[in-house]
């Protein structure tokens, strides 16, 4: 069934500004709707999760990808998904010695192109949506992971670093007829 080498079929692109500004409008609306930045972070993560459980089907449908066999495989897939959806190419690095944890380094990020965090929002994790997306997408392929921001260039860090950690394989959630 899976034809190797099949490229993503629908590569329809849009101007990244529409995306960036729409996301910006979402974050500022959340800041209005919620009392504090922590709640906004949580909401962004939740929305990311909802996107994650859907975007994974889009990714699988368009790439004919096979099931991941280890975290290195998973890291590669996540990296290619960033390329596919956001046109960025994060670097995969800082592997833990058990190969169950890695970082994604972003030297560019269309999500934050026009963003400057005011002093009052320093605990806001502007891109927390990413963490939710990764968690939701992996869960749908029966992989429990956690992910969090270690560095954020919006907060004066030299780069933006997203950490992803393997928790466990969700054996009970495997599709019918698979091990």
């Amino acid at each position, binding site marked *: *069934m899976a034809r190797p080498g099949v490229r993503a*079929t*629908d590569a329809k692109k849009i101007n990244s500004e529409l995306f960036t500004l729409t996301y910006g409008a979402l974050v500022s609306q959340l800041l209005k709707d919620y009392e504090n930045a922590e709640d906004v972070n949580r909401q962004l993560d939740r929305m990311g999760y909802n996107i994650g*459980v*859907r975007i*994974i*089907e*889009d990714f*699988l*449908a*368009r790439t*004919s*990808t096979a*099931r991941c066999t280890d975290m290195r495989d998973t890291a590669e897939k996540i990296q290619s998904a960033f390329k596919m959806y956001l046109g960025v190419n994060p670097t995969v690095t800082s592997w833990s010695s058990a190969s169950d944890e890695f970082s994604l380094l972003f030297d560019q990020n269309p999500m934050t192109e026009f963003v400057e965090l005011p002093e009052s929002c320093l605990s806001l994790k502007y891109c927390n949506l990413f963490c939710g997306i990764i968690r939701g997408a992996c869960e*749908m*392929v029966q992989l429990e992971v956690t992910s969090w921001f270690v560095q954020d260039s919006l907060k004066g860090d030299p780069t933006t670093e997203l950490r992803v950690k393997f928790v466990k394989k969700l054996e009970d*959630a*495997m*599709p*019918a*007829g*698979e*091990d």
Partner: protein
Amino acid sequence: MAIYSIYILSKSGGLIYQYDHTSIKVEVEKTFSYPLDIQLTEKNKRIVVAYGQKDGINIGHILLAVNGSQLNGTSLGDGQEVTAFLANESNYPVNLKFGRPKLSTNDKMFLASGFYSFYLIARQLSPVLASSGIEFLEADTFKLHGFQTLTGIQFLIVTEPNQMNVEHLLRRVYELYADFALKNPFYSLEMPIRCEKFESNLRLVLEQQEESSVNTA
């Protein structure tokens, strides 16, 4: 070349979408004299041929019309029970129309869960290691192609035995699902798909597929 129908099953085996693309009408009309030489029986509020197939009327067909007027369940237009009517010699000769029963929504849900269960058993009974469940099933009158995604959704396509290129079509349907169901804010995961654009785009893709396989045939 024809694509008969599409089924989509959720991860837990529930039918979340079904679409009949090409349906074939199997209907036979015949005039009978008394006594009726086929056995009819009542089953699920329908009159079914139980025994004595002839002239294209087969066991399992249901009685659709008597003397040109449609049946309403097991009764005639005027409310009279068919069984009583057919037992009465004075009503003969009588013209009866039989046909293959159309699948009800319930039938389809039953078929989907049936497939899901023997999909699993096929794996249990595998004589070799690491087999998947059923990916393809063939009968003399149709073929069924299945595709299970890594997330556990099943897509089934039922076609004429000589329909080509169905693997490709399964992937296209998966893409349509990812587009017109999952990017629709009004669709909730695992729920029945009721999205106009999903259906219209599906219809389009199926028509294109049928055309292209005619051209290459």
